[in-house]
C-alpha cells in the first residue's frame, strides 16, 4: 500500500493538484515514524512511510497547513476522517485547500506492548496468521498478534471514511465496537473505588501537555491552560485533587467534540487511559440525547450546543444518582 500511496502522491504533485503531501516520515528506528509534510517526489521516495506503526492522526496539522498557499494532499485513516470532519464543522480547516485520500486504517501496533515482552532491537514486523513475527538485531521473535495491537485500534468504532476526495481501498463500514465496556466497569464501581481508580491514574500525570497538544479537539488559539487570565494556567498542583483538575477540565472542554480517536492515550508517556474520560462523556451524551458521533457528518448539531424540546431535564443527573 505504501507504494500505491507514494505513486499517487507523486502523480498529484506532478499534475499540480497539490503542492505538498501530508503523511508520515521514517524515524531513526523501524517504529518511530512521525507526521511530516513532503514537498517533492524525492522526499517522498526517501522518507515517506505507511506501515503498522503509523498511527498518528494527521487531521489536526491541517488547521495550519490548509491556511498556507496551495493545496495539500492528506492521507487519512477512517478514524482521522472523523476528526477532519469535526474540524471542518468548527471552521478550523479550509476544505478547499486539502485533497483527502482515504486509506485503510489499522489495526496498528503499539511498540510499547512489544517491548513489554522483553523484545528489543526491533528492525521490522510482519503478520503471520494470528502471530506477529518481529525481526530484531538479535534474531526473530514472535508474540500473539492481538497482544501488540494498540489501544485505539483494539476498540475501533468505525472503518468508514466519512470524508474524502478519493479512496485507496474501500469506503469501509461502521463497526460494532465494545468501546464502552471499561466505562461500564467504572460506572459499576462505588464512588470511592472510582475515585481511587482515577486518583491512581491521574496522579501519574507529569503535565507534559502531550495529550492536549495531540488532541484534534484541542485547537484553541490560546488554550486556557496557557492563558494567565483563566486562573488555571500552568498551576503546580497544590493538592491531590488538583492533579485531576487538568484532565477533568480538558474532558469538559472537548465534550461533544471528541471523536474518540484515542490519540490522548496513545501519546501519554505515563500510560494514563485518558480516552476513558472522553468515552464516559460520549456514553452519557448517547444515553441522554440519543446516539451522537462527533464528526460523523457535516450537518448534525452536537446535542450539547443544541436545544430540542425533547431534551432530558437537568434533573436526570440527580435522578440517576452519583453511584
Amino acid at each position, binding site marked *: 500500500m505504501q507504494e500505491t500511496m507514494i505513486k499517487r502522491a507523486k502523480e498529484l504533485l506532478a499534475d499540480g493538484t497539490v503542492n505538498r503531501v501530508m503523511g508520515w516520515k521514517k524515524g531513526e528506528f523501524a517504529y518511530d515514524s512521525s507526521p511530516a509534510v513532503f514537498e517533492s517526489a524525492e522526499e517522498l521516495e526517501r522518507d515517506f512511510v505507511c506501515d503498522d506503526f503509523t498511527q498518528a492522526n494527521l487531521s489536526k496539522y491541517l488547521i495550519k497547513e490548509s491556511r498556507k498557499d496551495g493545496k495539500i494532499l492528506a492521507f487519512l485513516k477512517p478514524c482521522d476522517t472523523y476528526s477532519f470532519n469535526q474540524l471542518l464543522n*468548527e471552521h*478550523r480547516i479550509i476544505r478547499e485547500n486539502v485533497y483527502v485520500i482515504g486509506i485503510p486504517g489499522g489495526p496498528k501496533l503499539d511498540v510499547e506492548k512489544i517491548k513489554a515482552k522483553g523484545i528489543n532491537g526491533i528492525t521490522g514486523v510482519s503478520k503471520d496468521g494470528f502471530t506477529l513475527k518481529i525481526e530484531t538485531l538479535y534474531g526473530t521473535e514472535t508474540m500473539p498478534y492481538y497482544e501488540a495491537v494498540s489501544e485505539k485500534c483494539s476498540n475501533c468504532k468505525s472503518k468508514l471514511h466519512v470524508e474524502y476526495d478519493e479512496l485507496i481501498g474501500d469506503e469501509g463500514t461502521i463497526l460494532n465496537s465494545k468501546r464502552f465496556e471499561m466505562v461500564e466497569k467504572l460506572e459499576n464501581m462505588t464512588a470511592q473505588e472510582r475515585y481511587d481508580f482515577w486518583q491512581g491514574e491521574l496522579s501519574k500525570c507529569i503535565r507534559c501537555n502531550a495529550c492536549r497538544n495531540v488532541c484534534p479537539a484541542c485547537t*484553541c*488559539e*490560546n488554550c486556557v491552560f496557557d492563558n494567565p487570565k483563566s*486562573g488555571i494556567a500552568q498551576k503546580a498542583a497544590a493538592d491531590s485533587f488538583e492533579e485531576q483538575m487538568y484532565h477533568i477540565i480538558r474532558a469538559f472542554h472537548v465534550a461533544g467534540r471528541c471523536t474518540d480517536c484515542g490519540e490522548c492515550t496513545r501519546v501519554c508517556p505515563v500510560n494514563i487511559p485518558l480516552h476513558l474520560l472522553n468515552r464516559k462523556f460520549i456514553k452519557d451524551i448517547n444515553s441522554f440525547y440519543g446516539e451522537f458521533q462527533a464528526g460523523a457528518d457535516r450537518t448534525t448539531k452536537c446535542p450539547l450546543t443544541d436545544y430540542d424540546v425533547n431534551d432530558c431535564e437537568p434533573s436526570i443527573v440527580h435522578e440517576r444518582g452519583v453511584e
Partner: protein
Amino acid sequence: MQRIGVFVCHCGTNIAATVDVKAVAAALANEPGVVISQDYQYMCSESGQDLVKASIKEHNLTGVVVCSCSPRMHENTFRKAAASAGLNPYLVEIANIREQCSWIHKEIASATDKAIVLGKAAIAKVHLNTPLTAGESPVVKRALVIGGGIAGIQTALDIAEAGFEVDIVEKEPTIGGKMAQIDKTFPTLDCAACILTPKMVEAAQNEKITIHSFSEISDVKGFVGNFTVTIKKKARYVDETKCTGCGLCTEKCPMKKVPNEFNMGLDNRTAVYIPFAQAVPKVASIDPNYCLMLKNGKCGICSKVCSVGAIDYKQTDRFVEQKYGAIVVATGFNPIKPDKYDEFAYSWCPDVVTSLELERLMNAAGPNGGTLLRPSDKKHPHTIVFVQCVGSRCDDEKGKPYCSKICCMYTAKHAMLIREKYPDTEVYVFYIDVRTPGKNFDEFYRRAVEQYGVHYIKGMVGKVNPKSDGKIDVQASDLLTNEQLHIDADMVVLATAIEPDKTARPLATMLTTQMDTNDFFTEAHPKLRPVESATAGIFLSGACQGPKDIPETVAQASAAAAKAIGLLCKNSITCNPCVAHSDEMMCNGCSSCEKVCPYGAITYENKEFRMPDRTTAIRRVASVNPAVCQGCGACTVACPSGAMDLNGFSNSQIMSEVDAICK
C-alpha cells in the same frame, strides 16, 4: 484604589428579624476597599436613597453594594440613585439577603453568616465592575397575538384601536375559540354567539388586523421590540383568497362520517368543511385524514363543484416571516378528558357527558338543533345529575390540584337553563363547595336554588353505574345529612377541570417564557405585573395564565393590550449594556457561540491578524451585535477558549464571587 460603600437594609423586619443587620454592616466594613458600611431601616425609601447618594458624594465612592431584596425589586432604584449622585449606575451591585437569605432561614446566627458571605461576594464582584453605557434599539410597531379566542380577539381589537398593526395567529380554521362553542353565558344568560360573533367580524373587518387562521408559530427569534416570528400556514387545500364560503363543497362532499370537533364529536361533518356558520374567515378546509382525494387520489367532487376554483389538492404548508415589537400569548384552555375516571363511566356510557358537550347538546347549532336529548336514544332526559370538581382540586395524578374556577357558575347556568326550558326535569348538583365570588355571581347561584329549585347536594359522587334499562344509577353521599343516596338519572354531566392548551408548552420554550408545573404561563409578578411574562415584550392574555371566566378574560385581554400598546408607542427602548463581546485574539471561529445564541446576535468575519510567531494570518472571528445581544450569557459558557465574555457578569467577576463565597 477602590472606595466601596456598603448599605445594609433592614426591610422593616423582613430582613432584620432573621439577619443581624448591624453585625453584617460591621463585618463588611472590614472587607478590602470598603470605606463606609452602614445599615438603615428602609434603604429603598427616599431617605434611604438619600443616604446612598450622600455617601457617594461624601466618600467619593467608586462602587456601591446594597444588601437588600432581590435585584428584580430595587436594583433599578439604586442604579438611578447612584446615577443622580454622579456614579455610573452599573457600579452598583445588589446582595440579595432577603429572598435568598432572611426569608428562607430561621436561625439568626446562620442567616447572619450567610448574609455576610453574600455581601462579601458582591464586594468581590464590584471590585471588578466597569462603568457601562446603555444604547438604544428601535421598536417594530406591530404586535402578534397568539390565539384567536375571545382573549386574543379582544387584545387584537384594542391594539388595533390604538393604531398599531396586529396579527392574530389561530391554529384552528376559524377564530372564536371556546366561547364560540358555548351556548349561553353567565350571569346574564345572553347567547355567547350573539356577543362573540360581532367581535369576530370586527376583527376580520379591521384594516389593522391580519388573521392567520389554521396557522402555528414555528419559530421565534429576537427580543423585546424586535421579534422575528416564523408563522406556519398549514395547508387547508383551499385557496383562502378565492373561497367565498358558499358551502357548496361541504354539501356535495361524499365523505360525511368525520367526527365534528366543533360539536365535541357528538355529530358528523364532511371531509371538506366550514367549522360553523359564523366562522371567521368563512373559508372551507379539507381534512386530509378523511378526504378521499387526498388519501386515495379518487373523488375530486369538491373541486368540480367549486365555481371559483378554490380547491387546491396540491397545497402545502407555507411559512411567513414577520417582525413584531410585542407578542401577546392567548393560547387559552381545554377541558380535560375525564376518561381516567372509571367511576364516572364516561368512556363507555354515551349519556355521561362533559359540560362543554352539554353546551353543544343545548345549542341551536348543535347536534339536536337546540333540543336537549340524550345522546344514546335521543329521548328527553327527566333526571340530570351534575358532578362538580371532576379533576379539579384533585390531589392525585389523574386530575389537577387547582380550582378550575368557572365550573360552579356554568353548572348553575346549565341547571337554571334546563329547569327553565324543561320544568319537568329534576336537576341535582353534587358539589364540594360552591364558589361564586364575582359581580352578581352569588345572586345567580341563589336564583338557581331558590327560584328554579335545583337540588344542590354537598357531597361527591362515588360511582356512576349505567343500567341495562337505560337509566344511570348515581351513587353518592350527602355530607350534610350523612346519607348514602342513589339517584336514577337519565343523564350525568361532568364539570371537568380545565387545563392549558397543549401547544402552550412548546410555545413557552420558543418564547423563553416561564410556566408553572400545570403549564400555565407565569406572570412577571403575581400581584403587580399580572399580564406581563418575565420575558420583556411577551404579554399574557386570558386562560393561558390561569383559569378565568369570560369577563375576567376580557379584562385581562385589554390589560395585556394596554401593556403592549405602551411598548409599541415608544420609538426605541433602552438596551441592556450587559452584552457579550469576543476577544478576537482568543477566538477560534468555531461557531459554538453562534449555534447557542438564541437572538442571532453573533456573526463571523475573516480578519487579518499578526500572529505571535510574527506571521500574518487570516482568521475567522466572532463579533457580537450589541443591539441584538440580550446578555443571556449562553455564548460565554459554550465558548471553548473563553474568548466570549459578558459585560457586568464577566467570567472573572463570577469567579471572584465564587472565590469570596468559598474562602
